[in-house]
């Protein structure tokens, strides 16, 4: 879409691979600073990855109340003027068994002027947030994320439009030559007779729309209360699985006499008698 293409271009200009483009203007407000996102940790295909899904809650919603409120840090405004003209194929010539003979120029252009500003969080506030405790009573959305084994992320930086902006793109085909083709699309171009077909799209995006964001993964520490914000490398799990040590103390482990197994489990394990099955 026009919006997605613009936000992707903006991310390229921002240069940081940590920035992610927002894909849909209607859900852009869900990627504001400190909003929570979830993402499936395991997917059934190795050829695509799941998008970040906003959960309609902020980080503050899962932390115990505190008098200190993180102050947003605003960067300087900057303007990006993007005028892209793409000449897909200067000359289009196709000859196939379907009597196709097309010759012409195809041009696509995209033009916009964006004034954006980044809203981020100071390192001190970030550190402070990591010391905060998670609410004793786990909100239902957290339980569901835990059940599914999702990972959670928090938006730490959002790039917003400081003005309402009109996005625009157009594509045109200047065609010459004959079109003795069975495909109605090409035939339609000739039928129009002008030899030039232009399509224009414009979209007005309101001030404050988030175009791109940075996120950090949320990891619950072992005591289940404090949180830790780390990088977005996706290598950790938000909800840590129970460690073997915890399993040993919380579950009665009965094991059949096997030297290797005994060795593996004996250290730090309370030995229990083997009961008959």
């Amino acid at each position, binding site marked *: 879409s026009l919006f997605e293409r613009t936000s992707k271009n903006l991310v390229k200009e921002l240069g940081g691979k940590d920035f992610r483009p927002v894909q849909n203007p209607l859900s852009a407000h869900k990627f504001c600073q400190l909003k929570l996102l979830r993402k499936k940790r395991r997917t059934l295909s190795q050829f695509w990855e799941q998008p970040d899904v906003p959960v309609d809650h902020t980080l503050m919603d899962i932390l115990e109340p505190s008098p200190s409120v993180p102050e947003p840090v605003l960067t300087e405004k900057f303007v990006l003027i993007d005028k892209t003209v793409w000449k897909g194929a200067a000359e289009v010539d196709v000859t*196939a068994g379907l009597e196709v003979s097309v010759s012409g120029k195809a041009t696509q252009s995209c033009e916009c002027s964006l004034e954006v500003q980044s809203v981020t969080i100071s390192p001190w506030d970030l550190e402070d947030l990591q010391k905060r405790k998670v609410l004793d009573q786990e909100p239902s959305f957290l339980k569901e994320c835990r059940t599914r084994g999702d990972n959670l992320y928090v938006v730490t930086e959002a790039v917003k439009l400081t003005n309402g902006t009109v996005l625009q793109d157009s594509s045109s085909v200047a065609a010459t030559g004959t079109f003795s083709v069975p495909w109605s699309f090409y035939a339609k171009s000739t039928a129009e007779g002008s030899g030039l077909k232009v399509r224009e799209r414009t979209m007005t995006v309101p001030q404050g729309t988030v175009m791109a964001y940075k996120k950090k993964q949320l990891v619950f520490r072992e005591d289940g209360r404090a949180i830790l914000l780390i990088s977005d490398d996706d290598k950790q799990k938000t909800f840590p699985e129970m460690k073997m040590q915890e399993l040993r103390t919380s579950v009665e482990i009965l094991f059949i006499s096997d030297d290797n197994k005994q060795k593996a489990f004996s250290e730090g394990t309370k030995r229990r008698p083997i009961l008959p099955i």
Partner: protein
Amino acid sequence: GRIQEPISRDFKSLQNEVSREMQAVAELPRDIRDALFHTILAKLRDQGALQDLTDMLDGNLWDHTGSFLSEMREDSRNVWLESRPYVIYLLEALLVLSDIQHELLAWSMEKRILPQQRELVESILEPNFRYPWNIPFTLDPKLLASLQEEGLAVTFGLLQECGLRVAPDNPKGTWDLEAKKPLSALYGSLSVLQQLAEA
């Protein structure tokens, strides 16, 4: 000039992965395939409903939510749950795509042009899958000819939304590495939906 990716990531592997899913779906009873097809078609135009369905199937949440599954007869529900992995595979692929693509896919499902679209997507992916930069390609006129006017526009809409530089007026396009994942997801979606549609 090709990406040195693990063998498991070449186009053949994608084809194998998708074929496995198609095979599994083909083995489902006809009425279940039909029900799945229509359920997904009904939810395609609502991104939230699609996400909810995935979450429900993915997180074993059907028994304590007022979902359509919890209200189903037990035998029907069991069949749904048995087909869960294949449905989740399809839903995961669909969720990679945009709202606009969901609309276009729903239209394509109604018009029964999924096989032609799948073949076209395959013809783009197969030769370009390993290239990491922008390279030009030409679409096979025979594959384009198999789609009618509106079908062609819808199919090009699907491709453009993946990030490919193509236009219905022009059989030439440009491959873009950024389009690879969404295009693969589109290929997976079209393949499994096509299999369901055959019911």
